[in-house]
C-alpha cells in the first residue's frame, strides 16, 4: 500500500509529475487529492523537493563500487546526486546499472523511434573525441604545447570525420 505523501493515509491517486524532466511519483489520499487537483497545494516545505524525489529514485541504484566513466570521469555516485550523465559514453560505461532505471522509467529499453539519416555507427570516435578534448585541456594546463598541438590535429581529424564542423560555415558566421 502506498501512503499519501501529505498525511500518510492510504493513497488513492497516483500521479507522476515530470518536473524538470524528472519523473516524480506522487501518491495522495482522497482528501489531499482534491487539494492537489484544485491547485491548493500543501505548504511548500511539506512538498518533497524535486532534488529529493530524484535522489530517492536514484537511491535504489546501488552500484557495487563507485565506478567512473572512463571518458568524462563522472562517477556513478555523482550521476546519482545530480541525475544527469556526463557524456554519451556514460550510457555504455554504466549500462548495467542504468538498464533497471530505464526499465523503471520507460517500461521498455529499446528505441523504436526515428534514426539519424547518416550512419550513426561512430560512437567509438565520439567517445575518443571527448577523451582527446580533456587530454588537450590537461596538456594546455601544464603548458605542454607540443602535446596540445598534436592532440589538436587529432581532434580536427576526428571532427572532420564526424562532420561536426562544417568548416566553411564555422568561419563565415561572422558576416
Amino acid at each position, binding site marked *: 500500500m502506498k501512503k499519501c505523501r501529505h498525511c500518510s493515509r492510504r493513497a488513492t*491517486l*497516483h*500521479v*507522476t*509529475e*515530470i*518536473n524538470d*524532466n524528472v*519523473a516524480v511519483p506522487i501518491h495522495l489520499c482522497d482528501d489531499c*487529492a*482534491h487539494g*492537489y*487537483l*484544485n*491547485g491548493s*497545494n500543501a505548504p*511548500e516545505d511539506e512538498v518533497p523537493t*524535486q532534488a529529493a524525489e530524484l535522489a530517492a529514485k536514484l537511491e535504489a541504484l546501488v552500484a557495487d563500487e563507485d565506478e567512473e566513466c572512463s*571518458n*568524462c*570521469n*563522472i562517477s556513478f555516485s555523482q550521476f546519482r546526486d*545530480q541525475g*544527469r*550523465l*556526463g*557524456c*554519451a559514453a*556514460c*550510457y555504455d560505461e554504466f549500462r548495467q546499472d542504468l538498464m533497471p*532505471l*530505464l526499465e523503471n*522509467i*520507460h517500461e*521498455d*529499453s*529499446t*528505441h*523504436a*523511434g*526515428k*534514426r*539519424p*539519416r*547518416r550512419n*550513426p555507427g561512430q*560512437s567509438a570516435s*565520439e567517445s575518443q*573525441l*571527448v577523451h582527446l*578534448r*580533456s587530454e588537450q*585541456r590537461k596538456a594546455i594546463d601544464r603548458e605542454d604545447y607540443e602535446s596540445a598541438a598534436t592532440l589538436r590535429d587529432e581532434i580536427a581529424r576526428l571532427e572532420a570525420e*564526424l*562532420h*561536426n564542423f*562544417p568548416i566553411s*560555415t*564555422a568561419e563565415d*558566421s561572422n558576416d
Partner: protein
Amino acid sequence: MATEGEQSAFFPQDMAKTSGAWLSADGPESDIVFSTRIRVARNLAGFPFMSQADADTRAQLVQTLKAALTETGHNLTFINVESLDELDAQLLVERQLISRELAQAEGARGVVIGEGESISVMLNEEDHVRMQILHSGLSLEQCWDVANELDDDLEEQVSFSFDEKLGYLTACPTNVGTGIRVSVMLHLPALRITREIQKVHTAAQKINLAVRGLYGEGSQAMGDFYQISNQVTLGCSEQDLLNNLGDVVPNILGYERRVRDLLLRDNRSQLDDQVARAMGILTSARSITSEETMHLLSSVRLGVNLGMVTEVSIATVNELFIQTQRSHLQRIQGQTLESDARNEARAAWLRERLSDN
C-alpha cells in the same frame, strides 16, 4: 541569422507588446486547447554533456550550433542568453521561448528563435540542443512535421549522439530514445469548477501521460490550465506518442464541453455572475496581483467561449495571460517596477487591452 554583434536584433520592449503566433487562437479546438508543443532533445556527438562541459566547451557548442542552424536555411534569430539581464531572460521565459533553467544557468548559452516564435532552439540547456515547436490549438501532426524537418535539417550539419539500442542519448535518462516531449495545454475551467478534473488525472495517468500546470512545477491549475504530456520516451515511436495524445485529448475536450453545457443548463445565472464580475474587476481595478489576474482571466476566457462576453477575443485573453506577468509589464512600461507599482501597471494594462476591443 543574427550573429555576434547583432544582439540588437532583440528588442525586449517591442517584443513585450507583441505576441507569439501560437497565442492567436486560430488552431483547431483553440477554445479549449491553448497550445501544442513538441520539444526535441539532442546532443552533439563528440562533446561531453552539459554537466561535464567546461567554459571553452560551452562556448564551442554555441558557436558550432549557431553556425549549423544558420546552414539549415530556416529564418532564425540568435539571442545570447548569457548576456541578458535577469528581466529580459525572464521575458523569454514568460513567452515560453526558453526554460527557467536556461534563464538561470551560467556560462555560454543561447536561444534561436524563428518567425512568429513558433520555433525556438535552446542551446546549452540540459542538453546541447532543445528544439521547441509551439502552435496554436490542437496540432500534433503539424508540430511534429516542423520538428522532424528541423531535426533532419540540423542533422545534415552535425552528428547527434545516437545509440543503436537506446536511440538519441540525453543527459537525463528520462528523455533517452526519441528525446521528444509532446505537450498539449488545455484550458479546463468547467472541469475544475465541478471538480471533475480528478478523473482526467486518473485517466491520463493510466496511459502514462503526465498532467501539470501552465509553468510546470508548483503551478498546478494556475488559470485552470492543464498540460498533458507523454512521460515515456523510450520504446515507442514519435508517431505512437502523437497518437497516444491524439486519442486522449479529444475525450477530455468532449468532457469539458459536456460539463460546460451542464453548467449552462443548471447554473446559468451563477456562471453569468462569475463571468460578469471577472470582467468588471479586470476592466476597472486600479491594482491587481498576478494570481487574481490569472483566476479572473480564466473566467473571462470561459465567458468568451460561451458567448457571454462578446467584446473581447480569445486571442486577446490568451495574450493577457502572458503580458500581465512581471517582466512583460516592466518592459511594456520601459522601467523597473516594485511589486506595488507592478500591480498598478498590471491593472492599467488590463484596462487598456480589454477596452480597446
